[in-house]
């Protein structure tokens, strides 16, 4: 992931938006997502090591389990 070391701010935000959209939005057909919590954590950890803004990457809830106190879904 060397490409992530030289992102300008716009690219950085776009990357965070990509990850948020694919991992936290989009239609969930089955009512659950078949990805382990560990895999999701690893994804965010790997991105986190290379992105400067810790908070924006760490905030989404995990894809496969959603605890009641997790951040709310995008709402109307």
């Amino acid at each position, binding site marked *: 992931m060397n490409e992530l070391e030289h992102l300008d701010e716009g690219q950085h935000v776009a990357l965070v938006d990509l*990850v948020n959209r694919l*991992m936290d939005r*989009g239609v969930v057909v089955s009512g659950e997502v078949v*990805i382990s919590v560990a*895999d999701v954590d690893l994804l965010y950890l790997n991105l986190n090591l290379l992105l400067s803004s810790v908070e924006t990457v760490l905030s989404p809830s995990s894809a496969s389990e959603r605890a009641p106190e997790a951040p709310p879904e995008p709402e109307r």
Partner: protein
Amino acid sequence: MGFYLYCIVPRDHAPPEGLTGVDGAPVTSRGVDRVAIWESDLDRPPRPDLERLRAHDRVVRAAFSAGITPLPARFGQWFPDGGTLSSRISGSAGLYEEALRNIAGAVEFGMRLIDPAAPARPPPPPSEEAGAGKAYLRQVAQRRKGGNGRGRELGRELRSLVGSWVTDTRVASPSASGELAQVAHLVRVDEVDAYRAAVGVFRERHPDLRVSLTGPWPPYSFGP
């Protein structure tokens, strides 16, 4: 041999010849009820990494066509057999059809309003003293409340400027300190220029704010 789902599209909308997706797998389409799905044959659920996320997004973007906007699936929708996938889609076909109508000919933009003057980090976590935890939470709530008040005001102003070009909105909770608002806008393709111009006006009015606009995206935020 399982099935990995990328998106839901109108019936009879097929992928271009040779399109590949996650792990280079060919992308095919299948009619289900009154819609169609784009999928790949995959042995197991794909682990999320940047390359796979991008591959998924690329397939969804390839599904855009004149007047057609795909309904993106979240990353990771894998099914051990085609029948399970089909029956789950059938079960909500009416909802998907309606969503496809709502998003047809449109794209998503994501906007964040950030106050660069806000502290970059949240207050430090409390020490182990009794009552410190409660005081800390009250502090965080106070800060959030103040930020959100301004966020709501800015949101109203933004709506008055871009409202004509936005057909639907989803509001997300701000996800970082200093972030006043985070919204997703659904914008018709032929109104994107006018929308961007309106965002430009908003930016000019608030030189103290960082207005981060990303897109166009497939409408991940506008599913049923």
